[in-house]
């Protein structure tokens, strides 16, 4: 530090000391002056001014309390945010890098989706506990069967329901589709009525098929489950939406 700077500092310190002494002396004068005041001179603030001052103080005090409260929250919030961020990062990295975890996660999300859809269609699914397809193609499903998949290509919709190694498949064709029904070497065959429309039930080599049409589409309900009764199949066919 240069000599000049030291001198300036000394000068500043001397002025500070002198200012302080002057303040103290003035303060002593104020005290003695106040002590010498008559009672008549000892005025008090009128109520409105006192109230205004109290309000200003109270505002500042409330802000002080609020700031203290927020400061007390700062630490736990920081820790919580850090923990949440760490969990999110670990979770994201796991999903991206660990196959098993990713599959479990996707399954879990799919299940959530299924559950939601189940709730959505529950009101119409009467006695059965089975979930139905998102499109509600079969409102009634034979017991044990669950929605598996839906395909919609070239205006042909195929909805599949599964139960262990059995399946029920509903196929919906446009009305102008030409179809051949194989009736050769069938085990049994009979005419059925589905929602007032004529149809045909054919059983062959362990597979059962009902085919019928209305004004809009041609339907085929097909299953490999020989345990399903004809009535159950007809009821399912009649519930086709």
């Amino acid at each position: 530090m240069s000599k000049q700077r030291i001198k300036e500092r000394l000068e500043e310190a001397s002025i500070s000391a002198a200012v302080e002494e002057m303040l103290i002396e003035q303060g002593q004068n104020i005290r003695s002056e106040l002590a010498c005041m008559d009672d008549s001179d000892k005025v008090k603030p009128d109520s409105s001014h006192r109230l205004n001052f109290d309000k200003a103080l109270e505002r500042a005090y409330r802000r002080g309390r609020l700031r203290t409260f927020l400061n007390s929250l700062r630490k736990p919030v920081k820790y919580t945010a850090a923990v949440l961020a760490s969990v999110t990062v670990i979770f994201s990295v796991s999903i991206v890098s660990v196959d098993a975890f990713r599959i479990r996660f996707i399954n879990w999300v799919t299940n959530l989706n299924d559950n939601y859809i189940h709730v959505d269609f529950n009101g119409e699914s009467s006695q059965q506990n089975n979930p139905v397809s998102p499109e509600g193609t079969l409102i009634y499903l034979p017991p044990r069967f669950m929605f598996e998949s839906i395909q919609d290509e070239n205006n042909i919709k195929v909805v599949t329901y599964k139960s262990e190694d059995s399946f029920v498949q509903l196929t919906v064709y446009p009305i102008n589709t030409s179809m051949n029904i194989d009736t050769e070497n069938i085990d049994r065959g009979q005419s059925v009525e589905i929602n007032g429309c004529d149809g045909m039930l054919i059983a062959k080599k362990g597979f059962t098929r009902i085919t019928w049409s209305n004004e809009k589409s041609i339907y085929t309900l097909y299953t490999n489950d020989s345990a399903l009764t004809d009535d159950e199949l007809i009821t399912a066919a009649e519930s086709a939406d």
Partner: protein
Amino acid sequence: MYAVISKEEKEFIGSLYDEYYPFWYKTAYSMVHNDHTAQDMVNEAFTKLIPKCSRLMSFDKNALLAYVHITVANTCRNYLEKAGKTTVTDPDDEIISNISDGISVEDDCIKSFDISILKSIIMKLSEKERAFLIMSYYDELGDRIISKHLDIPYNNVRMYRTRLISKIRKMYVTESKVSRHE
């Protein structure tokens, strides 16, 4: 700036207001000559003091009273200046303005210090100059806050300080000579 205080600070500033109110009122009334305005000025001065409460608590009690007194006086002076009821330029400020800017600080630093002489010089300064010194050297406020409190343009604060110090140096030399003769 929002004032933020604790319970102790609230009680402290409340008691400072109540206990010495007659004196604050007297100071304000002697300047504004109106009962209602004098009370307004005291409240305004204390509103300015609320944010500094924690610092005020560390002051010496006597110095604190003088500090509040100067704040009240300063608030009144600002009010009067804004209301056009007094000359904006303090006569003593004129003296400061007349001191040459070209004074070399190196040549003019006070070589030896007698605090009592400095104190008597400070007592001879105008209210505004005293307030400036208190804010700068006792309260250690920044230039921006000083400019707000004393209504001095921010860009002029440094110049104001330099000129005031030069003035004190000159007065110190004169006073020292007088005291030596005595």
